């Protein structure tokens, strides 16, 4: 395991980005003859050799199905799977491994809650609070749950500055509120809502809280934090997991199956039906090792520094920036418009320069309507990005302006 952060006695240590870059084979790829400047980390991060090695080691040495196969490989694979669960639990600070349900990630987790908890406990007249910041994965499952139960979906507004309106939240909360489900970090604006404050306010009226952590703590477990795609999961309180219905019915999630009814396996296996994403979660465990070796405080400090630099350079270049400008209120991503160039055109032009960004509505059409734009361009940063990458982005904007004569 490479430890690429320089140790210092106090405060966060700067990341050794040159050394980190060497851990990511894909960063050696040339894109149309140019250096790859990967700024689409909010969609998915690149994977370090340590994670790729963990995947290979699993498939080459231990591949078997888990919790069912009575042979040595089955035993090893099961052990690695459960060790990964314990590793991820430690990474997110969960009290116990059984608080972690493995699945394909945040979208599946939110659907799991909407089915397993929402369909079972929501009643007509109940309210689910979500915000205008949300990704579609924290909107659509609740629309479906509301339709099936008669509960009402209520939106917490976003301020003009791109922050979650906590004053409005206070007036929206009532004894009808059964759940507040909010983004831990906006995938468009990078806004980081005050989760602790939201949890306290929600609990005060007896509501539960669900946090979409896809972008958080990079940020949060899964394929956006160096883990393989389709890795990730749900961290939840054990008593809630026990009260909830299962989500995916199938093999290994049962205790006993009879002709007309079944009983469920214990938590967390009650929620892991069918052959699971075994290799991916083992890879995610390796990603936790990698990030902990860097130190998450150092990762955060690096992201803040780079985001502040990016905001400064982009504003100088004349972009219209969306979301908070204070880096303490946002994560390592910036959404913007550049002159009159549509984000999709911008992304195509930047791609020719080796600069990979995202363009579109980012699965957040409610927020796009709030911002009164059809789409934004988004650059998102991670541990292997540095000021050179930001400079490459700004340089490529110049090329776009030239092409569009803007």
């Amino acid at each position, binding site marked *: 395991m490479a430890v690429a952060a320089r140790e210092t006695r106090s405060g966060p240590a700067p990341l050794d980005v040159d050394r980190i870059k060497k851990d990511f084979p894909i960063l050696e790829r040339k894109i149309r003859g140019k250096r790859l400047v990967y700024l689409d980390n909010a969609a998915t991060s690149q994977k370090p050799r340590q994670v790729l090695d963990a995947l290979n080691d699993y498939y080459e040495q231990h591949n078997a199905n888990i919790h069912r196969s009575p042979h040595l490989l089955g035993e090893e694979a099961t052990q690695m799977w459960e060790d990964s669960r314990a590793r991820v639990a430690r990474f997110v600070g969960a009290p116990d491994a059984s608080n972690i349900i493995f699945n394909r990630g945040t979208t599946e987790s939110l659907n799991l809650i909407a089915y397993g908890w929402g369909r079972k406990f929501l009643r007509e007249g109940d309210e689910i609070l979500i915000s205008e910041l949300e990704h579609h994965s924290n909107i659509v499952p609740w629309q479906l749950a509301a339709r099936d139960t008669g509960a009402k979906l209520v939106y917490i507004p976003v301020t003009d500055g791109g922050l979650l309106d906590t004053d409005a939240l206070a007036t929206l909360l009532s004894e009808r509120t059964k759940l507040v489900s909010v983004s831990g970090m906006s995938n468009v604006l990078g806004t980081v809502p005050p989760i602790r404050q939201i949890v306290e306010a929600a609990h005060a009226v007896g509501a539960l809280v669900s946090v979409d952590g896809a972008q958080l703590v990079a940020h949060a477990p899964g394929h956006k934090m160096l883990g393989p795609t389709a890795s990730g999961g749900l961290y939840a309180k054990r008593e809630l997991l026990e009260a909830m219905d299962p989500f995916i019915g199938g093999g290994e999630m049962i205790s006993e199956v009879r002709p007309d009814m079944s009983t469920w396996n214990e938590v967390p296996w009650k929620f892991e039906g069918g052959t699971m994403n075994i290799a991916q979660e083992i890879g995610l465990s390796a990603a936790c090792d990698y990030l902990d070796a860097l130190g998450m405080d150092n990762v955060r400090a690096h992201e803040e520094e780079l985001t502040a630099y990016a905001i400064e350079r982009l504003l100088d270049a004349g972009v219209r920036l969306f979301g908070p400008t204070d880096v303490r209120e946002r994560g390592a991503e910036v959404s913007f418009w550049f002159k009159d160039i549509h984000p999709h*055109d911008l992304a195509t032009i930047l791609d020719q320069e080796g600069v990979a960004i995202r363009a579109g509505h980012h699965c957040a059409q409610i927020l796009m309507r709030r911002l009164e734009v059809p789409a934004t361009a988004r650059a998102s940063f991670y541990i292997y990005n540095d000021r050179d990458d930001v400079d490459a982005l700004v340089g490529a904007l110049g090329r776009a302006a030239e*092409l569009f004569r803007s």
Partner: protein
Amino acid sequence: MALEDLYKEVILDHYKNPRNKRPMPDAELTCSRNNPLCGDEILVSAHVENGAVADVAFQGQGCSISQSSASMLTEAVKGKSVSDAEQLAADFRGMMSGDVEPDEDEFGDLVALKGVVKYPIRIKCAVLAWDVLQEALSGAGEAAASAPHA
């Protein structure tokens, strides 16, 4: 391929100065669609008289490719018979899949969009308006059938 071949002057001109971009409140044929991938939206309105496209306009928002394609579409199909307009839509789609070599007389400005073929992810943008047109025109027969006899 150079970017200049994608973002040709004529495309940028249609993007910045779209033709026939206006509401047509009394149009009997109207259809709209969006491209959920990028949020592009196109609404096409047409007025058909004696089996020909007497007037056509569009509204919408999106990238230079989707908007210029819509703008060029309105110029290309105005005055054409419904069946010729449908044929052009089919030919345009053929050009986008690389199967049809565009006829410059038939295509006019639309030839400029040929460069999009080299950017597979953007083909949907170019084709969007044409999908909308075809859907709108598919109602032409019904509109004529239900129209009161003169």
